[in-house]
């Protein structure tokens, strides 16, 4: 017999996880869409965000500072990664791009392990959002509610950047045809660098927001990366709305399945992905030809 209160709270958990996945996946998908590079180190960006936030929190004791410092740090890592390595891979085969980002992911994870050890760290939620909230129909941890809000705001911000700014217009044009954008006299390399930074930052930001919910460890990014891939396949590569929709679908599937048996969460995720691949091979909101 299904416990409805439990079910409802799992639905909320799904929404929280879904929002998080949506944010991380949008980062991955705009990087791929614009630069044509699948960043296998994207999970490591999520992890780096968590650790950078933890360090900043350790020094200042302020969650807001941790959020800002952590995001900026991961953005910097993304920009440096693009400048120093990824840039030289645009003209190389896709497999080489995948291999190098895969290797970089390992380097990031192992570097963090070297400095911080394998034991997990926790960041407490900010004082304002501690405890639980009674929503009337159920009680729910306050910070999870707050994180849903924070992630929604971040997604909205990303949306505004993508759809309401000049940079966003260039990025969206670049997703359609980056060569054409380049020939219009726009310095695509500068845009690529920014996009990589913003994409990485989206994952890093999510990493900090998630840190008070789940403790952080060097390998937290791996599972997230896999889920992100499923989200992107479901939503469609290069589509921001697809990432949001896919994220929520994946989050709900994981949470609701976990209520019955966590072992099947990935199986159900995979089933959903298969259904999408059969029914709409380019993803729910993807366009043909982006691969």
């Amino acid at each position, binding site marked *: 017999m299904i416990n409805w209160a439990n079910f409802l709270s799992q639905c909320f958990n799904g929404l929280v996880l879904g929002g998080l996945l949506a944010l991380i996946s949008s980062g991955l998908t705009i990087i*791929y869409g614009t630069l044509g590079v*699948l960043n296998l180190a994207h999970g490591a960006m999520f992890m780096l965000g968590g650790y950078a936030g933890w360090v900043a929190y350790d020094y200042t004791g302020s969650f807001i500072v941790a959020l800002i410092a952590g995001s900026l740090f991961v953005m910097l890592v993304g920009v440096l990664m693009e400048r120093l390595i990824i840039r030289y891979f645009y003209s190389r085969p896709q497999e080489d791009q995948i*291999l*190098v980002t895969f290797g970089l992911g390992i380097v990031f994870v192992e570097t963090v392990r070297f400095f911080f050890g394998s034991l997990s760290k926790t960041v407490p939620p900010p004082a304002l959002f501690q405890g639980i909230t009674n929503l009337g129909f159920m009680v729910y941890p306050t910070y999870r509610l707050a994180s849903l809000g924070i992630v929604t705001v971040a997604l909205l911000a990303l949306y505004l950047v993508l759809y309401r700014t000049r940079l966003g217009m260039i990025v969206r044009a670049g997703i359609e045809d980056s060569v054409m954008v380049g020939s219009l006299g726009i310095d695509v390399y500068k845009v690529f660098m920014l996009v990589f930074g913003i994409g990485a930052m989206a994952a890093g930001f999510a990493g900090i927001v998630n840190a008070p919910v789940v403790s952080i460890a060097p390998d937290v990014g791996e599972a997230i990366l*896999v889920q992100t891939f499923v989200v992107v396949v479901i939503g469609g590569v290069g589509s921001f709305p697809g990432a949001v929709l896919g994220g929520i679908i994946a989050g709900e599937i994981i949470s609701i399945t976990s209520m019955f048996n966590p*072992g099947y969460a990935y199986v159900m995720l995979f089933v959903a992905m298969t259904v999408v691949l059969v029914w709409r091979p380019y993803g729910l909101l993807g366009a043909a030809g982006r691969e």
Partner: protein
Amino acid sequence: MNQKHPFLVVEVLTAIALIAAPFILPHLGFAPTTINRILIWGLFGLGFDILFGYTGLLSFGQSAFFGTGGMFAAYLLTELDFPYVMGAIILGAIVAGLAGYLVGLVALRRTGIYFAMITVAISEVFFFVEFNPLSRYTGGENGLPGVPTPSVFLGFTTLTFHSDRAMYVFLAFWYFVGLVVALRIVRSPVGAILSAIRDNPLRAAALGHNIHAYKHTAFVAAAIYAGFAGGLLGVMQGFMPPDAFMFDTSGQLVMQTAIGGAGSLFGPLIGATVWLFLSDFFQNTLHLGATWKLVLGIVFVLLVVFLRRGIVGAIADLYRMAKGARNATEPAEKPMAAPVITPVATEALLPPPRPTHSASSPILRATGLSKRYGGLMANSDIDFTVNHGEIRGIIGPNGAGKSTFFKMLTCEVPPSSGKIMFEDRDITGMSVTDVCQLGLTKSYQINQLFDRLTVGQNLTIAALGEIRGKFRLDLFRNIHKIPGLAEQVERTLALVNLMHRLDTPVSDLAYGEKRRLEIGLALATSPSLLLLDEPLAGMSPSERIETVALLKSIARGRTMIIIDHDVDSLFELVETVTVLQEGRVLVHGTPQEIKFNPQVQEAYLGGVHGEMA
């Protein structure tokens, strides 16, 4: 592919190396178990290299099959007391192959990054299923201990492989068997087509190969190898570890293959040697502790950045450089100047066009053909008929819809409406592969070649489509023993005047030569109707003259449709001309009629009347 291997040099050298290894490697600091482990990774990698190195499919999901095969074999041997160790391993490999078949149904729906992402997800699914729902059978996080040692009953005595040295003999034997099988696959027609798929999947499909089925074959083969290697792992350790299923296993395989060099079959073995040696060295000699993985990760990134084709590729490049330096000191045997080309006109050289049943009826009839791209009508309501033996030209200003029209005829794009009959058969909506099999193919406006293969290999791929049909599972057949293949390749080679370029990689050809090879690819499929999309595009005047001569010699006894902007050359070749303008047929007639047609002049020159240039 075109060189015959005298007395199986590779196999003999490998056998010698495998025999020598246990006597040499320990002196270099390899522990006996490390050497055995290298063999397992090498065997695992043989299948992966067929998938990644030869077919170009980068999978991060191989751990799923490695674990499946290993767990199945270990379960049979420990829980069910199955008596035959090798039998269990082989059954495990078969189960892994079945899993590979099913997973392939999903994963191969997409290519490129989608494929990579889907395989990552798959490996994670298998890991969770093994750990949780199936933990009753797999031991969950404990794995399955007590996997028995293999033994061979020889009639008078029984060999058991207890010691590390004995286990080496056992594993080396199976590695060798795996290698021999992999080499046969790579040297078979299937192997050739897999390389073609890696280089240019669209053209491989357009030459009449069912690329999806071949990719699926490579995927299953890789899964079987993975399952087999997984079974050996359990037997070697006497314990089947659950971490065989972990994503790390897939990642390590990918990294080892990249370090060693993909596409040579030996890359994974060499990569595993380097990887396992370094990991032992960092941990046991340098005492780096957990940092070893960081150092290996950095080494890997540097290798990917600087050594594009891995260790095997670097050795091959060095060898070529050394050879090149030696050749440079010797007097050049052949002048480097472009060979003088004499147009070939011997009819004996022509690959025979396929027999056609009804010579009087039209070979191709398109009715009401339209193609709409969003709001743009690329083609509207085109009626078009070509008779057997006719040489037809199509001209029209840029944007008239000529290439779109060709793409619909070859079924590369489906028409929005209309019907295409080829040899009295409705081909509307068929795949480009099936249409090529029926005898209708095209040479492309922009070269679509297999860049990493030689000229001879390129033509072999094209000829195989006609000789073998769209899919055949002759995995162990020697490509050199296919009757008629060599002849067909040679005939085409002579026809397009590339005899002296047989073993030259396509990337080393001059543009004009590439252009002729492009036409050669289409010809080698022995089409009964050949479409040529701007065969003269981008050619110098002298190349044009040669190519027109070439096309004239091809034209004899063949049905062709040619699009070109070089109207003078085209009118020399064709009997009738169709003029397209803004997606419609403007007029149709002989070259003379077209030349003086005021409508055509207006279409081209915008109302300025006079003879066309």
